[in-house]
């Protein structure tokens, strides 16, 4: 099972840039890039912050494939 995410899709829907989302959740832009490329698995706290910022349920944003 691989942890996938739809961060890029919902970020673009909300018209956020990677930089803006990074500032919103308090991480670096590189971290957002890594999450979107499935290279880095965020902590539950960060995942929830991203979900909150993108106004989407966490289980929609992060899922197993």
């Amino acid at each position: 099972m691989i942890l996938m995410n739809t961060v890029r899709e919902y970020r673009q829907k909300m018209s956020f840039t990677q930089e803006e989302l990074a500032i919103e959740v308090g991480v670096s832009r590189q971290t957002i890039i890594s999450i979107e490329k499935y290279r880095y698995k965020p902590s539950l706290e960060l995942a929830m912050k991203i979900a909150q910022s993108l106004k989407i349920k966490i289980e929609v944003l992060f899922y197993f494939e």
Partner: protein
Amino acid sequence: MKLSKRESSILIEMIFAVLFSLIYMPFFYGERLSSLDMTHVSSKAIQITVFAIIYFSAAYVLLELSFKQKTIQDERDDMINSKSYKLGYVLYELSLFLFIGVLLTGSSFNKNGAILFFVLVLLLMVSFIKSLFQLYLYRTS
């Protein structure tokens, strides 16, 4: 290949290790078979300290001028740092065992020049490998 501010700062550390090896290690290699007196070593240590201060000051000023934005230390940085420092720690431990082993068995270590050279080689190698691994993690995770 575009490097981030953090990757550049790791590169600065790696370049320092390389420069140190090129500039100062020939001296310690040359002195490996002799008994170094402390006055000779301390003058070299002062030279190295001055060189390190100048190098790091210049490098970090350049880095700050090139990357104006403030860097945020987040959980990814903590994860990468903990992985790379763990590797560094394991390598230091292995080096220590290697050092003790060589010290107990090798007859060439009856001069303090040899001990100093061997310790410096180990420290440089471990530091360089740790930084290289850190850079690798920043590029791939």
